[in-house]
């Protein structure tokens, strides 16, 4: 056991993966000498050399495209996109190459690659260092989309992602990079892709969340003594439908919390799944507490992020609904 934050957990896991598998190559902007702008790859180039930890030119579509080409030749590429906000020039590569290679080659060509990128707000990053674009990726067949909410899951999900035969978008909630230190086992373990966690059990209502909002939700539940079932999805594509539906059936009251904008966000899909499968169990409408449908503001970001007050407002509404 070691006590570590999410950055340390990711760094030591990447180190361990590279030590055990020489076919793994990391590439991205400033990930080598500089160790990455968030220091997730700190020290890895010094240890594994410039050929395996590549400081690339500043070109996101090239980083993703090269990673696809590498993976086709049997190298396990783990590219980093410095901020998820910068990923859009690589969107064509992600949607039309990365996600479709297996399908369009009839299963002949496969892409076991893991694209890591920090996402979300809360670091005073303004419009272009704060976005939560997870729904764009979760809308794309062929991709797996995961996001850890703590150092333990970060390690277990990263190992599972690297072992996955399918391409994974690994979203790192940058606000939580150094938010908490917890005990992380030194040995290998896996957090299964497609499996949600239930960090709190309760009977009165279900709160479904993931990534950066998990600590906010847990603090809200504790502070207000809510008897809530809290689901941390961990995998956004494919979501753990059984966990979602069984909890919704148990409590009959559901609040969904995410930082991304409301319209067509993950909450819309979760709400639809529950409506289709468990509407007769519900005592109240399914409510969403999300970022507003505006670009991410710099100075006023505290108003943007879902807060304890906003979560409690939704909780009260579903609890008091008649």
């Amino acid at each position, binding site marked *: 056991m070691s006590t570590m934050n999410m950055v340390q957990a990711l760094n030591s896991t990447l180190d361990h993966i590279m030590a055990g598998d020489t076919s793994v*190559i990391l590439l991205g902007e400033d990930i080598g000498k500089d160790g990455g702008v968030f220091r997730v790859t700190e020290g890895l180039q010094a240890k594994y050399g410039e*050929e*395996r930890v590549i400081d*690339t*030119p500043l*070109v996101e*579509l*090239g980083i*993703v*495209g*090269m*990673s*696809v*080409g*590498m*993976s*086709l*030749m*049997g*190298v396990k*590429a783990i590219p980093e996109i410095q901020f998820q906000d910068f990923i859009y*020039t690589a969107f*064509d*590569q992600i949607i*039309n*190459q990365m996600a*479709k*290679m*297996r*399908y*369009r*080659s*009839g*299963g*002949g*060509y*496969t892409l076991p690659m893991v694209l890591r990128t920090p996402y979300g707000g809360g670091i005073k990053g303004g419009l272009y260092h704060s976005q939560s674009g997870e729904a764009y990726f979760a809308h794309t*067949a*062929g991709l*797996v989309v995961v996001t850890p909410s703590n150092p333990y899951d970060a390690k277990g999900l990263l190992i599972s992602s690297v072992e996955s*035969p*399918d391409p994974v978008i690994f979203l790192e909630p940058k606000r939580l990079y150094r938010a908490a230190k917890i005990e992380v086992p030194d040995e290998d373990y896996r957090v299964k892709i*497609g499996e949600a966690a239930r960090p709190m059990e309760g009977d009165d209502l279900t709160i479904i969340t993931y990534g950066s909002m998990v600590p906010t939700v847990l603090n809200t539940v504790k502070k207000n003594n809510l008897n809530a079932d809290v689901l941390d999805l961990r995998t956004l594509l*494919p979501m753990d*439908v059984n966990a979602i539906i069984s909890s919704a059936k148990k409590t009959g009251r559901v609040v969904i919390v995410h930082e991304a904008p409301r319209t067509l966000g993950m909450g819309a899909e979760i709400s639809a799944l529950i409506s289709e499968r468990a509407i007769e169990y519900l005592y109240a409408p399914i409510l969403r507490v999300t970022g507003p449908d505006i670009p991410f503001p710099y100075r006023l970001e505290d108003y943007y992020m879902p807060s304890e007050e906003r979560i409690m407002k939704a909780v009260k509404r579903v609890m008091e609904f008649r």
Partner: protein
Amino acid sequence: MTEMVNEQNEKDVFVRAYTAMVLSRTFDKKIVMAQRQGRIGFYTPSIGQEATQVGLSMALDHDDVIFQYYRDVALMIHRGVPIEVILDQIMGNAEDESKGRQMPSHYTAKKYNFMSVQSPVATNLPLAVGAAYALRYQKKNTVVVATFGDGSTSTPDFHAAMNLAAVFNLPVIFLCENNGWAISLPTEKQTKVEISEKAAAYGMKGVKVDGNNFIETYRATMEAVERARSGKGPTLIDAISFRMGAHSTSDDPSKYRSQTVEEGSEKDPITIAEEQLKSLGYLNDSLIAKIKEESTKMVNDKFDIQEKIPAPEPGTMFDDVYAEKNWIIKEEEDDIL
């Protein structure tokens, strides 16, 4: 020519190249006709680009990797991909390597180191760069080729790939099949400079070559292959030809251009090859007639046989999205089938 091919087999090598060009031309005409008859949905013919593609193929080894685009039938034929494999893809039948999922002209031929063709142009170029990086890392002395049209040179992917290949000094050959037209846009409206000159901006070798001349293209590609294999980095080859056909069977080029190269004219790459090989004493009129006749018979026969292969089973459309179907796909499959 002797510096490139063994003298004893030069005749065989050149006649095989010519035969592949003729077979490709015959194939293209057959498929365009079949599309008009409603037997094929769509097609992007290579007519006019046979010399470019065959000249490229002649310089490559089996282990070399090709990230091709959707107009490379002569390249595939010369590399040994059976006509049946190409037909299966165009027909989207149950034997097709991509299980009928892709529209015609989007081939995959793994056994021959052809990757899988995408529609969005030039997105194969960064993949070729990554593949070359991986192969060098694995200590394989393999060359990676990306083919694309002149329109692709305007894309960000072209720029990214050229820059990355040069920065990492990778064994990549970028072969621009410059047929003069990106659907309706002529090359002079696509770019202000010669495509080969763009290479200088990235610090790589750029070569302009007569893509209507298979021997010239072969020579230029051989030099690029040698540069790549000896660690001297990437090359951009601008192979100039003319798209004698339409962009695709859905395109009517009479709306935007006049036909400047007629089939069989002295600018037709196949006519040029015939003149070259006749003057070398490798071909004569009766041999040419025989090759053409055999090509026609082969294409017609194989077309009729492959046409009888049924469509893939409906359930196959849910396969290969992932290594294993997730619950979403299983549920949707149950619902639809």
